[in-house]
C-alpha cells in the first residue's frame, strides 16, 4: 500500500497543475471523466471486491478503491458531483484529521447528511474505498455534503478529478520533507487546491504561506480567513522561527536569563537571539514574545496582515473552554478538546461551516425561477442544480433551512460536542489514570503539543518509530526544543528509534528513566507504574497504532470512529 502511495504521490507532485482554472463550473464537475459502459455496475463490482478482500483479509482498505479506479476512473467525480452542497476539502500539514472530524461532526450536528473519509485514509484511493462502502447499488450517495481530509499531494491529485466547492487550508509546516521536498513546494501544492475551488476558500490568516494563497483563488469565488488574537499568536511561532534548543538557550543568554549550555555572553553579538534591524511591527513582536527571532525575514516580507478581517478568531482558551470572536461578537463555549492548537482548529472548522451556511441559506427556500434565470449567473451558476433539487425535495429543503439558519449558539453547541480525534489528544483511561495520546509528526506539531500539554503532574512517555509513514529521517527531532521536559524528566522512551530519542533528550539535559525498543512491553510497563497518575504518551503515527493496540489489551479502547 505504501508503495502505491508513493507512486501516486509522485504523480501528483510532478504533475503540478490542476486541470484548468475554469472558474464557475459546477462543483464536483468531472474533469475529463469518462463514463465507461460498465459505469452503472461500478458500485456492485466495487462492493463485491470490498467484500471479497475483507473475507480474504487481504489488500487493506484501499484495495477495492484501486480496482474501481482502474475499471471506472470517473466513479469518484460522478458520485461526489451529485452532492447538493458539494465537497469540503481539508488539507495542510498539521491538524487535518482533527479539523475534518470537527467540520463533519458540526455539519451533522446541525442536521446535514455528511459523508466523510475515515481517519487516516487521506488519499484519493482511500476516499473511493470509503465511497464504495456508502453508495447504493444504483450509485447514489445519501449525503448532502462530503467533508474530505486529503494529504497535500493527494489533494492536488483529487482536485484534478473533483473540484471542491469549499477548501479549508490549515498550514504549511516542515513535515516529512523526504516526501514533498520543501515547504515552499508544499505551499504550491495547496495553491493548486485554492485554484480549483469553486465556492469558498478558507485560509489561515496567521500562516503567511497560506494567507498568500488568497491571490490564487479564481474570480467569482470567496476567500475567508480564520485567525488568532494577538496574544495567542505566541503559541504559534512561525515555522521559520526555528525554536530549537540552541536558539532558545542563546536567546536566554541575550536576555540574561538562566540557560544551561554554558554559552557565554558575547557583548551584544549573541546573534541567535538578535532580530537586528528595525523593530518589527506590533503584532510581530507579540508573535515573537516567546519564540526566537530567527527567521524574522518572513516577518519583514510577509507579516500576516491584521487588517485582513478574520471570519472567526480564537481569542481565549481555558480549561475545557474557548472564546471566539465572530461577527464582532465574542462568545465563550465549553469544549471537550484540549490544547490551544486543537481549539485553533475549531476556529477553522467554524469558519468553513459558516461559509457552507451562507450558501445553504440562499437555497433553503424552493424557488420558482422564471424570467431569464439571471440569478444563476456567475458564481451562482454552480447552485443551479441545487436549486432544482431543492424544488423537488422538501426534506432537503428543510435540512438546508434548518442548517442555514442555525444561529451561533447552535454552532457553539456543535463545537462543544466534538471529541478529539484518534490519537489527537484522545484520552484513554487505564488503571484509573487518564492516558492522553498525542500524535507527533513534525517539529512544529511536537512543539505545539509540548506547549499545549504541560508535563507537571504527569508521567511522560515518547515513542518514535521510523517506518515509511512516520518518516525515515530522524533529523526532525533536533528541531524540537525539549527543555520544557527538564523539570519532570521522561519516564519511558520507546519505538524503533528509542535510542535516537533518548540521545536527543540527553543533549537537552532531560532525564530519561527507561529506554527500550520493545514498544509493547514499554507501554505495558509505563501505564502500570504510578497507578492513578495521569500520563502523556507522545507518539509517531505507526507508534500510535501499536500503542493503542497495546492499551486495548488493558482497557476498552474505542475504535477510530468518524464524527463524534
Amino acid at each position, binding site marked *: 500500500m505504501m508503495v502505491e502511495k508513493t507512486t501516486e504521490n509522485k504523480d501528483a507532485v510532478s504533475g503540478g497543475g490542476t486541470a484548468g482554472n475554469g472558474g464557475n463550473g459546477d462543483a464536483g464537475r468531472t474533469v475529463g471523466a469518462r463514463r465507461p459502459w460498465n459505469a452503472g455496475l461500478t458500485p456492485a463490482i466495487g462492493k463485491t471486491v470490498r467484500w471479497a478482500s475483507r473475507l480474504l483479509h487481504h489488500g487493506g482498505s484501499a484495495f477495492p478503491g484501486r480496482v474501481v479506479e482502474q475499471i471506472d476512473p470517473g466513479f469518484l467525480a460522478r458520485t461526489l458531483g451529485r452532492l447538493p452542497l458539494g465537497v469540503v476539502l481539508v488539507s495542510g500539514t498539521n491538524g487535518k484529521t482533527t479539523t475534518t472530524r470537527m467540520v463533519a461532526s458540526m455539519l451533522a450536528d446541525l442536521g446535514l447528511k455528511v459523508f466523510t473519509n475515515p481517519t487516516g485514509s487521506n488519499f484519493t484511493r482511500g476516499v473511493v474505498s470509503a465511497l464504495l462502502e456508502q453508495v447504493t447499488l444504483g450509485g447514489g450517495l445519501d449525503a448532502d455534503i462530503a467533508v474530505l481530509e486529503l494529504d497535500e499531494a493527494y489533494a492536488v491529485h483529487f482536485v484534478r478529478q473533483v473540484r471542491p466547492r469549499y477548501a479549508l487550508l490549515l498550514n504549511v509546516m*516542515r513535515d516529512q*520533507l*523526504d516526501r514533498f*521536498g*520543501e*515547504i*515552499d513546494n508544499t505551499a504550491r501544492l495547496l495553491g493548486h487546491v485554492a485554484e480549483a475551488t469553486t465556492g469558498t476558500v478558507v485560509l489561515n490568516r496567521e500562516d503567511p504561506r497560506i494567507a498568500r494563497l488568497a491571490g490564487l483563488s479564481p474570480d467569482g469565488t470567496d476567500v475567508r480567513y480564520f485567525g488568532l488574537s494577538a496574544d495567542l499568536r505566541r503559541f504559534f511561532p512561525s515555522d521559520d522561527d*526555528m525554536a*530549537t*534548543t*540552541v*536558539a532558545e538557550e*542563546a536567546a536566554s543568554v541575550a536576555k540574561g536569563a538562566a540557560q544551561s*549550555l*554554558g*554559552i*557565554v555572553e*558575547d557583548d551584544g*553579538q*549573541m*546573534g*541567535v537571539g*538578535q532580530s*537586528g*534591524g528595525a523593530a518589527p511591527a506590533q503584532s510581530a513582536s507579540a508573535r515573537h514574545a516567546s519564540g526566537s527571532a*530567527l*527567521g*524574522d*525575514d518572513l516577518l519583514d516580507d510577509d507579516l500576516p496582515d491584521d487588517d485582513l478581517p478574520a471570519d472567526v478568531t480564537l481569542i481565549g482558551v481555558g480549561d475545557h473552554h474557548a472564546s471566539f470572536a465572530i461577527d464582532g461578537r465574542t462568545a465563550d463555549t465549553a469544549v471537550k478538546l484540549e490544547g490551544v492548537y486543537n481549539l485553533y482548529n475549531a476556529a477553522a472548522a467554524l469558519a468553513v461551516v459558516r461559509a457552507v451556511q451562507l450558501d445553504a441559506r440562499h437555497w433553503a427556500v424552493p424557488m420558482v425561477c422564471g424570467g431569464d434565470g439571471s440569478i444563476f449567473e456567475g458564481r451562482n451558476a454552480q447552485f443551479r442544480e441545487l436549486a432544482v433539487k431543492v424544488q423537488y425535495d422538501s426534506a432537503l429543503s428543510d435540512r438546508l433551512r434548518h442548517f442555514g439558519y442555525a444561529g451561533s449558539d447552535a454552532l457553539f453547541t456543535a463545537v462543544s460536542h466534538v471529541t478529539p480525534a484518534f490519537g489527537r489528544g484522545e484520552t484513554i483511561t487505564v488503571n484509573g489514570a487518564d492516558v492522553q495520546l498525542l500524535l507527533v509528526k513534525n517539529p512544529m506539531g511536537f512543539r505545539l503539543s509540548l506547549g499545549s500539554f504541560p508535563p507537571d503532574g504527569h508521567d511522560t512517555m515518547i515513542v518514535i518509530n*521510523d517506518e515509511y509513514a512516520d518518516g*525515515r*529521517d*530522524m*533529523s*526532525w*527531532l*533536533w*528541531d524540537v526544543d525539549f527543555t520544557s521536559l527538564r523539570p519532570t524528566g521522561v519516564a519511558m522512551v520507546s519505538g*524503533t*528509534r*528509542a*535510542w*535516537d530519542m*533518548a*540521545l*536527543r533528550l*540527553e*543533549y*537537552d539535559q532531560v532525564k530519561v528513566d527507561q*529506554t527500550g*525498543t520493545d514498544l509493547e512491553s514499554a507501554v505495558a510497563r509505563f501505564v502500570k507504574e504510578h497507578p492513578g497518575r495521569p500520563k502523556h504518551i507522545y507518539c509517531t503515527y505507526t507508534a500510535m497504532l501499536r500503542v493503542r493496540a497495546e492499551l486495548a489489551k488493558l482497557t476498552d479502547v474505542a475504535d477510530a470512529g468518524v464524527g463524534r
Partner: protein
Amino acid sequence: MGKVIDVMSLYPKDMNIYGDSGNVLVVLRRLALYGFEPRLHAYNQGDDWPEQVDLILGGGGQDTGQAKITDDLFRRADRLRDLAAGGTPMLMICGMFQLFGEYFETVGGERLDGIGVLGAYTVGQEHRMIGNLVEHSDDFGDIIGYENHSGQTFLREGTLPLGRVDHDGTGNNGEDHTEGARVGNVIGTYMHGSLLPKNPKIADHLIRTAVINRYGEFEPDQTSEQMFELARLDALAEEARKVAATRPR
C-alpha cells in the same frame, strides 16, 4: 572560568533545515562538558563578523534560503577561504557543502558559483537521493546519517571524500561511491541525522582541532560529573548508531 572557544553557526536563519542545528547543540554541549566555555555566534547575512572564530558549522537550506544568503556568502568568501587555509575546522552540510564547492550547475544548465573552499562541483539532477546511509572512513570509523539531496557532487583530484559508501545510487553522486569532501580541516557532507549526535568522533575531531589551534594543546578541564555525562552521551550514541545502521533506506 574555562577557556573560551568561539563557535560560529553560519546562516542559521536560512540554512538550518533538517535538524542541522543539532550539530551546533552537540558542539556547544560537548565543549562545555570538556570544561571549555563555548561562545556562540549566530552569523546571518548582514551581521558583523566576530573578532574571533574557532569553529564554523553550516547546514542545509531550501532553495529560497540558499538564494537569500548567496550575496552575503560572497562578501565573506575571502575571510572564509583565509580561515580554511589557516586550519579553522568547519563542517558544512548539504546546501552549504555545495556552496563551499566550486559551482552548482542547475538542471537547466545555469551555473551558480560557490566559494571554492572545497575542490568539488555539483550538477543538478531531477532524481533525489534520499535515505539512511552508512559510510566508511579511516579516521572516524562508520559514519551514520541520512542523505537528502538532488545535486550530484563530484570531487576534483586531490580532494578526499569524507567516506566511502557501499552502494550505487548513494553518496555524492550515486556513481563513484564517495560521500562528502575533506580539504584541510574543512568537512563537507550530505549527512543529516543530525550528523554529530550519532557521530561524536567527528564532533570531537572538530573540537580538538579548534582548541589546539587556539590554545596549542587540548587539555580538558573536566569534573568527574562532566566525564560521566560525556560517557553517557557516547553510550546512547552507540545504541542509536546500532539501530540506525540496520534501518531501511
